[in-house]
């Protein structure tokens, strides 16, 4: 992974059946790469942040990334956060969201999304990339799935 990726995990203590399960799933990811971190955001106490990321339900995950991490000096796996403590790079929003526990097939989607944001090449063809790049109006895509 070329970029540092952070999973903003929106959760609440009460009335959320799958928040705990989601936390357990997300906790499996940081051990896989020092470029993956999880930050818990309280949906009730930090409502402004939820609004900022368009999160209206929990559990939810928003994937953000450290753009400064795009430039990794040398090949060594020095996490960008450690390289510049207290001076994080510009955090950018991937606009990729997950609503509900990312279990089963959704876990695979989550890993794919992390790899994409982390720097993997797009799977879109050149023609489709151009079509997507030309979109000038807000587009909101919701894909309904089940754990399979």
């Amino acid at each position, binding site marked *: 992974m070329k970029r540092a990726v952070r999973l903003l995990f929106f959760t609440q203590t009460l009335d959320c059946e799958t928040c705990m399960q989601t936390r357990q799933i997300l906790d499996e990811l940081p051990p896989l790469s020092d470029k993956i971190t999880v930050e818990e955001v309280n949906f009730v106490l930090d409502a402004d942040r939820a609004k900022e990321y368009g999160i209206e339900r929990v559990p939810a995950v928003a994937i953000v990334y450290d753009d400064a991490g795009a430039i990794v000096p040398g090949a060594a796996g020095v996490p960008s956060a450690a390289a510049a403590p207290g001076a994080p790079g510009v955090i950018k929003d*991937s606009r990729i*969201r997950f609503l*509900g526990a990312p279990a089963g097939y959704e876990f695979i989607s989550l890993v794919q999304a992390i790899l994409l944001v982390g720097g993997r090449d797009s799977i879109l063809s050149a023609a489709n990339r151009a079509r997507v790049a*030309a979109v000038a109006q*807000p*587009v909101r895509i919701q*894909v309904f*799935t089940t754990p399979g």
Partner: protein
Amino acid sequence: MSLAHEMAFANPNITAYAVEATEFPDMSRRYMVNGVPKTVVNEEVEILGAVPQDEFIEQALQLQTKTS
């Protein structure tokens, strides 16, 4: 799901949500989700099932390309 996420990451005007249908029955009812995957774009366009990339992009952006 990955196509929608790819689109979101490629253009800041696009946001993509993967919604676990069984956890949010109110949303599933609202969008009449009877099978998965079901994709809803801007509350107007529906794409049923997993479709090839060209078709997915075509359908997802049909409202956008009308004006261009």
